[in-house]
């Protein structure tokens, strides 16, 4: 009986590193096409509509960047934790907590000069998200509690918490019953770039990516993160403080996701409202993985995924369900996972006896 067998490649070549992600995207779109045709949509036309929806005009392009900003930040946030093999899938909740804390400041101290208010809001967003990351981090560091499930459960708790605020104590009395807080004072607005909705958050995200790059490449701490990610035991023998690093990484990871939440309320919505993040925290996981945890690749991939979101929103006006975007996202991840193996191994058909 013939079977399939993986044989380790002698050397990892460069070409597959570019080809595999590209191929993963193409194959994902092909799989999406199957779902589209089954439901009676023309895949070609649908994808063209998606493309023009995301890139077809200056407005479309600006909106794509607007969506890409939180994905960049959240993608960078989770990538840091992933480097240490800490499965922070709680960026979604950390975004909500960051948005909550920043909104609290904006609503209470609206008359403060933006020079004070904006940094304070950033600090608040970072801290709140950081605490939301530190809880599972501490549980993991001290008691080996599974951080995947804790971070996920904390997402639900954070979302309900924000819902509670905007439906209850923080609701704008003039909102005609809509669950919204009052609009922030303009002092709490993150400045826009030009006439578009694209805001300073873009520069912040790029700055953090540069910081990450330097950190990982040139600092001792970056080296420790890499070693701990490879093997905790080895890191321990090398005298590295694993517990301290888990705490620090989870706090920073959560903090940056929290910052994404602050940037979203301060740069885009200008108020706290339900659904501040339509799943950015989850998409960020794919972004980070597709970018192979590389900070600059994450920026590029986040941009593409921003386009995917905007393209998907655009499709709704043609009655195509937005869920097609999730299908594409999931499929990309599958093909990428499969493809990564082919970077390291090649598949060959073998007879049973040879195994």
């Amino acid at each position: 009986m013939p079977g399939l067998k993986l044989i380790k490649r002698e050397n990892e070549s460069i070409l597959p590193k570019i080809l595999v992600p590209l191929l993963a995207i193409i194959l994902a779109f092909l799989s999406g096409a199957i779902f589209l045709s089954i439901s009676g949509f023309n895949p070609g036309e649908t994808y063209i509509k998606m493309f023009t929806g995301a890139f077809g005009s200056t407005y479309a392009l600006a909106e794509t960047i607007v969506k890409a900003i939180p994905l960049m930040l959240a993608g960078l946030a989770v990538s840091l934790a992933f480097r240490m093999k800490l499965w922070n899938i709680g960026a979604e909740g950390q975004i909500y907590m960051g948005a909550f804390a920043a909104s609290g400041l904006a609503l209470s101290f609206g008359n403060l000069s933006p020079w004070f208010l904006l940094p304070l809001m950033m600090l608040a967003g970072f801290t709140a998200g950081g605490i939301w990351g530190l809880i599972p981090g501490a549980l993991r560091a001290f008691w080996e509690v599974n951080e995947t499930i804790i971070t996920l459960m904390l997402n639900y708790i954070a979302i309900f918490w924000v819902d509670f605020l905007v439906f209850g104590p923080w609701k704008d009395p003039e909102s005609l019953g809509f669950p919204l807080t009052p609009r922030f004072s303009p002092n709490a607005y993150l400045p826009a770039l030009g006439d578009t909705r694209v805001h300073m958050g873009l520069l912040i995200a790029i700055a953090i990516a540069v910081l990450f790059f330097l950190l990982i490449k040139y600092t001792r701490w970056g080296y420790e993160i890499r070693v701990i990610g490879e093997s905790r035991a080895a890191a321990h023998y090398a005298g590295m403080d694993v517990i301290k690093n888990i705490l620090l990484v989870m706090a920073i990871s959560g903090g940056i996701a929290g910052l994404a939440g602050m940037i979203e309320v301060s740069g885009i919505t200008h108020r706290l409202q339900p659904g501040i993040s339509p799943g950015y925290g989850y998409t960020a996981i794919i972004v980070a993985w597709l970018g192979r945890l590389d900070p600059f690749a994450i920026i590029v991939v986040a941009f593409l995924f921003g386009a995917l979101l905007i393209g998907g929103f655009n499709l709704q006006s043609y009655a195509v369900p937005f869920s097609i975007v999730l299908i594409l996202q999931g499929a990309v991840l599958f093909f990428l996972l499969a493809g990564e193996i082919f970077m390291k191994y090649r598949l060959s058909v073998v007879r049973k006896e040879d195994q």
Partner: protein
Amino acid sequence: MDSAAIVALLTAAVVVGTPLLYAAMGELLTERSGILNLGVEGMMLVGAVLGFMITVNTGNYWYGILAAMFGGGMMAAIHAFISVTLRGNQVVSGLALTIFGTGVSGFMGKPYQGVNISMPFDIINIPVLSKIPVLGPVFFSHNILVYASILIALVLWYILYRTRWGLTIRSVGENPAAADAVGISVSRVRYLCTITGGILAGLAGAYLSLAYAPSWQENMTAGRGWIAVALVIFALWNPLRAILGSYLFGGVEALTFRLQATGVTISPFFLSMFPYILTVLVLVIVTIRLRQEAGAPTALATPYDREER
């Protein structure tokens, strides 16, 4: 609360806990073979939507149940292929499965939102047993899917601890190299357990969309798949404890509904948070009390490469 209300609550705990039990059972079997599948939520959603669609179109809910099992199994097969054959990262593959399943179910289920079907499953009162006070209504007056879930849990326990198959599965999860050395096909066992796990997750979804709701709503699982993953840890990978855990969590959710209905002054948002807070607390307590992940299959989430043994 009077005694009638308590009986009603306990009965509801079983009704609400049943999808958790199916899903936890599937994940438990999967993990016992050494594969971690975090895609339970996605498999449940696909099961829920397929079960509902096929039931609406054929009018036969048994076809719906079969379709749900098929869908869950197919989803799990993707995970098995990536985890076993390609030795890919199981955490990421599981997350991909959840995202993919959410997308597929939302996409296919769109035309079925708001479609109503009559409750397909009748309550079957078990003769004699259902007449026992308290225990009767709580355990012996349910639809067939509830009974089936308990039966599956008992059978799973028996298989895992009292049969050769169980020994094989556990050895693959604990020490695949040793299992391989005595001639067990590690890949085959892991494929079988993962796909069976997916079939059970599909059933969990079908229970939600056919017996519990009965309707289809996007994301109707609302994190139950993840709670099931946590339940497996709570249960220390033992099916009997999983029954207990499922009904405990079911009871909390049922209590939440009841409190909302009686107009308690606690905000509904805090009540909705409660099952998730409970999951966190339970997971923390269980992990701390049993020192690290005691009871977890040793080879969990580690791909097996016979050349590296």
